[in-house]
């Protein structure tokens, strides 16, 4: 009887997740423009995708994006959280300041950076250009566009990690921290031998989630550059969107989405494995 309790969530899950997921998998093997009846195409969508140089550059951009987000915001979040833990004064104030960008809507954050910071006409970069600084809009240069978008997302994201890490750090037994202090541990030694080992499960979880989220990234890229200039900031999700809604090639869009899901599945596998190991311990 108690098994019936999972029925409502199971039904919701099936309708909202399972059915669309199955449809996406099926559509990856069909040629469909989103209007006319779909035609079975076998593996043609995958072949066309793998022959397309834009797909590989988008995949590479996703890998670069993941690497950036595994290092920069995690490092920034850890450093700021540790400092907040060790220094009591102004802790709440800084927590609010760091967390504030997280609660601002993505579209607003993106437009503010695009118009008020990066723009050479209406932004801070334009002002600095007038003073003689050789600054140019990173979103307009193929070599910098992806990093320009990543900077905006980092600004919006790292505060979240900081707050999560701080919450975890506060669970580290106070006696261990005091003992390390009495032993004369430096800040870095405290980090390496006491704090980081104490919150390792949280860091691992956040890093796995970062991998999943990085392959799903869409909003900032789409609003700021739409994947340009010249595909230089294209990622898999913007490619899928373009194929579905601009090229009217839903089959290839579904195939692209499946590739994104593969990376998500790999990360999920590791997450579940770590979770079950912890449960065993």
């Amino acid at each position: 009887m108690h098994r019936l309790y999972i029925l409502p969530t199971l039904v919701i899950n099936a309708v909202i997740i399972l059915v669309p997921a199955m449809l996406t998998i099926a559509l990856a093997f069909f040629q469909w423009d989103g209007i006319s009846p779909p035609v079975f195409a076998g593996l043609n969508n995958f072949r066309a995708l793998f022959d397309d140089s834009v797909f590989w550059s988008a995949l590479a951009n996703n890998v670069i994006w993941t690497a950036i987000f595994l290092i920069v915001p995690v490092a920034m979040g850890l450093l700021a959280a540790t400092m907040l833990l060790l220094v009591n004064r102004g802790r709440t104030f800084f927590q609010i300041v760091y967390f504030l960008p997280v609660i601002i809507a993505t579209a607003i954050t993106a437009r503010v950076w695009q118009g008020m910071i990066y723009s050479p006409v209406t932004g801070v970069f334009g002002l600095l250009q007038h003073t003689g600084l050789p600054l140019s809009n990173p979103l307009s240069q193929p070599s910098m566009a992806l990093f320009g978008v990543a900077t905006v997302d980092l600004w919006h994201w790292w505060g979240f990690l900081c707050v999560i890490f701080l919450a975890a750090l506060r669970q580290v037994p106070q006696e261990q921290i005091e003992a390390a202090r009495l032993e004369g541990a430096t800040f870095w030694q405290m980090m390496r031998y006491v704090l980081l080992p104490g919150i390792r499960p949280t860091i691992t979880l956040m890093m796995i989630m970062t991998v999943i989220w990085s392959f799903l990234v869409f909003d900032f890229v789409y609003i700021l550059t739409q994947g340009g200039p010249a595909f230089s900031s294209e990622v898999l999700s913007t490619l899928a969107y373009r194929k579905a809604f601009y090229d009217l090639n839903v089959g290839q869009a579904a195939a692209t989405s499946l590739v994104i899901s593969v990376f998500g599945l790999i990360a999920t596998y590791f997450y579940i494995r770590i979770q079950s190991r912890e449960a065993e311990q």
Partner: protein
Amino acid sequence: MRRLLSNALAVLLSAATYAGSALAQEKKPASWWYENAAPENQQYLKDLLVKRFNEVSKDTVLSVDFRGAELDKQLRIAMLSGSGPDVVYTAGPSYVASMAQAGQLLPLDDYAAKHGWNDRILPVFLELGKYNGELYALPKTYETLGLFYNKTLFEKNGWTPPKTIAEFEALAEAMKAKNIVPFAAGNADWRPTNEHYVSIVLNSVAGPENVYKALNGEIPWTSQPFVKAVDTLNKWWQAGYFGPNYFSLTGEQAFAQIASETAGMAPTGTWNFTNVPKYFKQNNAEPGFVGFPSAEGVPYPIYALGIGSTFSIAANSKNPDGAAQVIDYVFSDKFYGDMNTVWQGEWNTPLRDLTKVKVGDAVLPLYTETMRNLADSVNKNQYGYTTWTFLPPATNTYLVSGIEELWLDKTTTAEFLAKLDATFQQEKAAGKVPAIPARQ
């Protein structure tokens, strides 16, 4: 007696009310989903279309629902599930073929005959809305590409609007020498802006006859005239005609630069007439608009035709006659005059004869003159082809990003055109190329 009279009056009143409500009930609803529009423009639509149509229509009551910028996606899904509006407002002719093929649209030939659309609407647009010989769509508005310039700046420098590509390039160099950016251009808010320039060179350098042949599959897009056209555009980019901030400026910010004399000329579309009063007035400058210069061997001017959206009737509409009445009202001289008086550039319905149309005195004479010239040119079959109207979807989206690859040295003209042609041939084989009206 008084009581009897009052009772009789009450009965009469209630009978009249009942008759009125019965009449109102007899009016069948007709729905129309509209795209993104500024609040003042939404009000113009409510006042000049919905209210006036409902006053004159005896059997239909129109309602317009503003669906925002993602209308085409909502519409496609709604049409699939059979729950779309009566008046189908598509994103352009390339969508019409697929919808007609899927049986989602009603043929309009009988309505065209009944309402006299064949006589009132420019024939080329009727041809463009056909699929398998039947009429399925009418364009809401048509636009063209040309050259906006600042007359005041030109007079100050003794410049005249160019008519040939050689004159145009000489003028651009003269502007550069005076530290004026030759082109007022920016794609920060709309990346497909790139295709405006591709459309310009395809028509004014390669020529509309060659574009027509390529659209019909008679010559490939890799042919020499297109190589020359794309090379010319690339030469302009490399020479810095687009200025240093093309990827940073929005379309409106860029257009404002010709009024402020930061930029010299704007090769863009007639939709920018909506920005003319706003920026030229505040800079005390006089606007000018001419056809884009042509290369040797190509007639001048060539007006490339563009259609942003089209009207159709849903196959499962419960009030197709009412939907046809709504479309008919939009194609009336009165509606053209009323709407273009308050909202220019967005409601240039393809009426064959604009001499009977009365537009308000406050409207810029340059706008009305340009629209008349355009209608005359189309009537005489002197027109070109914009890529967003005549190319199938995947070819068009590749063109938008592919030209950036060329500009930024990530590909060559030959590679760009080869990929464009391969995508086009694939889509042509799949029947995704819109109907191309015969060239006389």
